[in-house]
């Protein structure tokens, strides 16, 4: 109540609109050429950065959450599964990195859904720009968040004993592959963000997708001991291919098949869910 009163009081101190200077501004009718697809997307990415600047709390999920994931699973399973924490972290860290980042991608859908509610989306949709630019902008902004999450997790991992044999180059390649996959995979969330009506339903559906997809993989254990039908799923899951590829890259190997599978899945996600997303975006 008091804030409303102050706001009103502050408002009173502002000068009324100056219609003369307004008229001068309106006279200019020249329009610059449209920005390129890349320029428009990068501008939307910049918007995501500004939002982080104004609402830094939203970085919680790329800082505290990943740390929790690393520590929790390393100490929970380490002794039982690999005999020691030290031995397990070598196996687990690339996997848990993949799992956490893929999980974090689901916030993209929630962010889009919130924007739609607030009306700013209508403004973007009436702009004469490359149509997918707002979506690509979200994903570019999110890529920065994924880099942060990766750095945080690798740092924590190294502190508790992870020693990647692939060296900086292997780690870098692993993270890049993870980013490429996350960017592509996120189109499933842009789709849900546009398709579902409320933030809660986006969250609910996202959980339904993300939990089985990330847990039913080789992130925690080798699939050898799983029942046959589950092995069939796990061995063909995109998350398994990605986790294997990242694990091997960071260990200094070159897992051609898994990299190819990962990129294949990524292309499929972009083409499939990207097309549905843009259809929804244009038809709303």
């Amino acid at each position, binding site marked *: 109540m008091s804030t409303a009163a102050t706001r009103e009081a502050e408002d009173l101190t502002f000068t009324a609109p100056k219609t003369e200077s307004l008229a001068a501004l309106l006279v200019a009718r020249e329009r610059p050429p449209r*920005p390129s697809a890349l320029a428009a997307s990068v501008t939307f990415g910049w918007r995501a950065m*500004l939002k982080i600047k104004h609402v830094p709390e939203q970085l919680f999920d790329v800082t505290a959450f990943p740390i929790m994931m690393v520590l929790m699973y390393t100490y929970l399973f380490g002794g039982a599964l690999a005999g020691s924490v030290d031995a397990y972290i070598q196996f687990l860290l690339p996997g848990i990195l993949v799992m956490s980042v893929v999980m974090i991608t689901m916030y993209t859908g929630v962010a889009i859904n919130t924007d739609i509610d607030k009306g700013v989306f209508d403004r973007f949709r009436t702009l004469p720009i490359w149509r997918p630019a707002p979506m690509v902008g979200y994903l570019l902004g999110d890529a920065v968040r994924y880099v942060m999450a990766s750095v945080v997790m690798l740092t924590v991992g190294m502190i508790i004993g992870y020693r990647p044999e692939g060296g900086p180059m292997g780690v870098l390649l692993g993270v890049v592959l993870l980013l490429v996959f996350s960017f592509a995979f996120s189109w499933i969330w842009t789709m849900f963000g546009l398709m579902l009506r409320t933030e809660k339903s986006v969250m609910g559906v996202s959980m339904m997708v993300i939990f089985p997809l990330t847990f039913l993989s080789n992130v925690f254990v080798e699939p050898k001991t799983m029942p046959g039908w589950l092995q069939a799923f796990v061995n063909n899951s995109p998350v398994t291919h990605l986790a294997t590829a990242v694990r091997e890259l960071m260990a200094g190997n070159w897992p051609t098949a898994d990299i190819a599978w990962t990129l294949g899945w990524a292309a499929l996600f972009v083409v499939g869910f990207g097309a549905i997303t843009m259809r929804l975006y244009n038809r709303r």
Partner: protein
Amino acid sequence: MSTDLAIETNGLVKVFGDNRAVDGVDLRVPAGTVYGLLGPNGAGKTTTVKMLATLLRPDGGEALVFGSDVLKDADTVRGRVSLTGQYASVDEDLTGTENLLLLGRLLGHGKRASRERAAQLLDAFGLTEAADRQVKNYSGGMRRRIDIAASILNTPDLLFLDEPTTGLDPRSRNQVWDIVRAVVAQGTTVLLTTQYLDEADQLASRIAVIDHGRVIAEGTKGELKASVGAGAVHVRLRDADRRPDAERVLTVALNATVQLEADPVALTARVNGHGTELGAAEQAARALAELAREGITVDNFALGQPSLDEVFLALTDRKPATEKEAVA
């Protein structure tokens, strides 16, 4: 296909499930004017605007903006229009400056040009002091102003203003009206939707009254007012038993249908201004004199401007009458 028309729609239809939100709307909006779409909540105003602004796909009919089809030529249309929706169409997490910079860049301006234009707009809209505050901390009036500022970052040829003053205090409302007048004075066409007759009256040169997804009346302000009547007389009697007499007297004196209110002593009669040189006040005075002559005691009376309700009542009442005339 006349180039003088900013908007032309033919049988525009939008259906949501069972609801025909827009049900065959024909509009002709001349370029360079303010055109009012007047109607209550849920009449189909916003849906119509959204179709014209390329946000919704029409289910039937066609819509042309400066001769370009909103479906086939959506990109051309987007290059010429701007929309200020019912909700602030700006990012509330960003500051006023950041919002305008974002749009400036998206519209193809360089960094420097965007910065200059943003500063000039903030100044013209009296928002310089609030430039570096997040929009979510703006008052209602300031939000509207930054929203309109964003809409004219590139001077649009056609500006959609969807209920621009709903929820604003009178001072902010006047400011928005001043802005609209300044925008039109520079040659931009404005399509304004509103629930308020006086707002349409203040700003629009032509008005379409829309209800249940259909245009039920269209014309200049003068034409529309003449069809609706000049106002209504609300009368409160001392004695409820005399109401039938009062109804008869008023019907004759004002040559209009009289409405009986839920309150047993109250009646409302429209003053329609047809077939008489007298103003609404004189007509009302005569009617009251007639009541006095009949010995009906009036405790209280009021002469009101036609409210939107009365406009609708008038318009929906009139329809069967004209149809009957047509048959006869």
